[in-house]
């Protein structure tokens, strides 16, 4: 293959892979930032808590449906619930469709925790962390290979002093040095 022809194919591969990878790159990049900070926030769910005080619950069986409905009514949390649980003698948990109510029976101190999906982000994390598995595993492998090809073809996009033999060489060296620097710092 002549040098000119090789350059042309390099451009074509780089250009078309670039277009193909945009969607996946957006998913992986946004999710990457989200899960990178998993210690500081929940990347999948928005969890909110409202603290309230209701009338202390003195009923002999706090799990009785009428007692639970009364508690929910006082909290303005609707009337339907999935189930209840008593983690200890003084506490009642009520499971709702979109959250949980925790009540300290003797004091009436209640916490209404509501859980909402972070729409879009939850789905991006699902793909990024390969929770889907199955065919998606191979799709993600293909994407990784495409990124590798994008990087390599990117090196040879330009000729001359802005290309890999000039300015490009310095920038590539910096890019390679960054992970090495952090490995040296932390390992």
């Amino acid at each position: 293959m002549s040098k000119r022809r090789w350059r042309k194919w390099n451009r074509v591969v780089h250009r078309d892979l670039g277009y193909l990878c945009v969607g996946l790159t957006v998913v992986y990049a946004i999710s990457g930032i989200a899960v990178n900070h998993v210690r500081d926030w929940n990347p999948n769910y928005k969890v909110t808590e409202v603290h309230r005080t209701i009338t202390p619950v003195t009923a002999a069986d706090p799990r009785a449906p009428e007692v639970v409905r009364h508690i929910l009514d006082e909290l303005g949390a609707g009337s339907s619930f999935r189930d209840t649980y008593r983690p200890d003698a003084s506490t009642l948990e009520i499971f709702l469709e979109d959250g949980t109510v925790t009540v300290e029976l003797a004091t009436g101190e209640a916490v209404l925790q509501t859980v909402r999906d972070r729409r879009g982000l939850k789905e991006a994390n699902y793909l990024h962390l390969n929770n889907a598995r199955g065919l998606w595993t191979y799709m993600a492998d293909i994407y990784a290979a495409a990124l590798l090809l994008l990087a390599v073809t990117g090196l040879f996009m330009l000729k001359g002093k802005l290309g890999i033999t000039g300015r490009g060489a310095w920038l590539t060296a910096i890019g390679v040095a960054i992970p090495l620097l952090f490995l040296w710092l932390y390992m």
Partner: protein
Amino acid sequence: MMFAAAILPVLLLAACRPSEGELTMYGEELTLEETTSVSAILADPEAYLGQQVQVEGTVVDVCEMRGCWLAVAGEKDGELIRVKVEDGVIVFPMSARGLMARVEGVVEKLEFTMDQAVERARHEAEEHGTEFDPSTVTGPETVYQLRGLGAVISDHS
């Protein structure tokens, strides 16, 4: 025309997506025919150590950050058994709380030194977004849990 050609595979994939029924499966298919009560396991965990069991009960808690464990309530108040699954292999949604689950796993014993118990409690507090109080850990701990293999969670409680 080009746009239609690009969007067609996406639509086909969407059409092939399995429909959600009343039961949602996680991980491996359940193989045991009989369930063991959580109370029985907690009453004598050493007798079940290393055994594969199936438990059934209400999901009372789920790992908020990674969905890597859930807790199934026992028959008596205050009883629960935690089911830990391999990170990323099975991911339980927070919406499972309050739903009925059948879970299979192997009973295992975890022994924590005082320092490990403190670290574990700190990690749990982080997961729940609550303030960590080291005084709640008073000594070394032994915890029995299931190493989860598969689960079926009903869409209803």
